[in-house]
């Protein structure tokens, strides 16, 4: 497995389990560079001041929060440091709850937790206890300098730390116009249920679904890359002389003439005698 992105400990009560954090999902997105269409030069970004129109070096850049249109509060590195949560490197378990009491909307991004040598026993204990009680742990976590709420769940033998959204980040569906469940005819409901039954599967198999857009893009990129390479491979190393190419062409024409003659296609009719040099 790749190297850990973070190491710290899970804390609950008086128990401390030293752990490392690993990526659990990766995205398939292809990354592209922006190029100038004409000459394929890489596009560079420049930080330009909107007041004097000149490029600005990094050490002259500060962050500002626009609290009103055009009005900024400027914050310095010290200001950010003052409110940064302490980099405790810990997963502090606050409470335990049954998994289905948490709306799936809250889950954001999963990471794997792996115990270090000293933590193996306590790790297994926590995992089994969570499994048998059908509960997950809710914890406060600090990764780099940002604080998160997260759930610790047992999945396939591993403890998974899943970062969650804050309640304030979830948008309510209240503002949408959604019909209620009243006055739905039983007959239609029956048909809908039947449809669902016929389309139901025993297990969800994510492998069945492939990312077509991604695959097609890759196909295209491979083909292009292959197309660009071809001429180079076929190319004679030195500057070929026109005279040699003439021989190649004459031979090539001769071959296609034979091919045409052999095939059922009607033979070349207007062929004039060529005067070879």
């Amino acid at each position: 497995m790749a190297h850990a992105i973070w190491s710290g400990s899970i804390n609950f009560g008086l128990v401390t389990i030293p752990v490392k954090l690993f990526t659990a999902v990766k995205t398939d997105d292809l990354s592209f560079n922006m190029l100038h269409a004409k000459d394929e030069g890489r596009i560079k970004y420049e930080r330009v001041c909107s007041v004097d129109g000149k490029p600005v070096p990094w050490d002259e850049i500060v962050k500002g929060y626009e609290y009103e249109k055009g009005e900024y509060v400027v914050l310095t590195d010290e200001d950010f440091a003052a409110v940064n949560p302490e980099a405790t490197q810990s997963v502090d378990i606050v409470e335990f709850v049954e998994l289905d009491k948490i709306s799936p909307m809250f889950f954001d991004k999963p990471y794997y937790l792996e115990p270090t040598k000293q933590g193996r026993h306590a790790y297994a204990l926590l995992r089994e206890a969570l499994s048998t009680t059908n509960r997950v742990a809710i914890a406060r976590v600090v990764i780099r300098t940002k604080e998160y709420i997260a759930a610790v769940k047992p999945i396939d033998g591993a403890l998974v730390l899943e970062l969650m959204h804050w309640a304030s980040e979830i948008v309510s569906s209240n503002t949408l116009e959604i019909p209620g469940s009243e006055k739905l005819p039983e007959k239609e409901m029956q048909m809908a249920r039947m449809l669902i039954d016929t389309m139901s599967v025993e297990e969800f198999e994510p492998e069945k679904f492939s990312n077509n857009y991604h695959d097609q893009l890759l196909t295209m990129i491979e083909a292009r890359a292959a197309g660009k390479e071809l001429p180079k491979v076929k190319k004679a190393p030195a500057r070929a002389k026109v005279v040699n190419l003439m021989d190649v062409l004459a031979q090539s024409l001769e071959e296609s003439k034979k091919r045409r003659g052999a095939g059922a296609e009607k033979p070349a009719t207007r062929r004039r005698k060529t005067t070879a040099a």
Partner: protein
Amino acid sequence: MPPPRVTRRVGSHTLSLSNLDKILWPDDGYTKGDLIDYYERVAPLALPHLKGRPLTLQRYPNGIAGETFFEKQIPRGVPDWVERVTVPTPGGSRAETTFVLCNDAATLILLANLATIVLHVWTSRVPALEEPEFVIFDLDPGEECTLRTLAAVAIAIRGLLGEIGLSALVKTTGGYGVHVVLPLQPGYSYDTVKVFAEIVARQAAQRLGDSATLQRTIAKRPRNAVYLDYVQVGLGKTIVAPYSVRARTGAPVSTPLHWSEVEAFGRRRTAGAPADEFAKYTIRTVPKRLEREGDLWGAKNWKKQRLEAATGKARRLWSQPG
């Protein structure tokens, strides 16, 4: 609110067109409806150049400022009546690819409804996919190359072909450059055509000196020269079809020209950029031009030629040690 759909009857097919008001060219305000109308109007002249040629679609579902994708594989949901051809595509991640064949106006409009702006076609047709129907020289001007220089290079290539008894046609690419093509009788292989194109391109570069380059690495090309691309020849390689729209501001169209028009560009006193001139041929202006001129690449001008005699002449005239 469901997006408005419109049904349109084209030939024997009824098409359901969607989002006709969607703006594809934000600077010009041209919509998907405008794109569809354009392709419908030019279909009679555009179709002979599309029929039977495997087609790669370049789609812009969110307009020319949004992301684009190239589709070789026929898009899902395209109705069964749309004709198609399946060819092996070794090297790609698909073993074979099923290409759309744009054989009728209904298909062309259907593709436009999928926000297909640019039509890239093979240079061969079913069933003879291994026999190119023309030789193509893609003349790509450098950043500082003028319209005058580009025209001079195109005319020089026509002149070279004339020396060996061949006649060529020309069109704008819709972008910066022009395509010069030489229609062929059937029966030539891609290998033959490739070598022939290389001989002509080398001879042209040798005669034209600084104004033309065969350098494939962009950074090494002189900025005021025309890059003579003769390698766009090969099985599966595509060119922008005549009358295809381009995804650029103004909605320019790849437009066949009279050689006299190219000659006029060569006499220009001002040193304008080619793209400025070619930007005049758009989805607004080209339908009218076509009513006046017809298809300059049509059957009347599309003289299919043989290479044997020309090769003999080229050998006599151009072969010199060096």
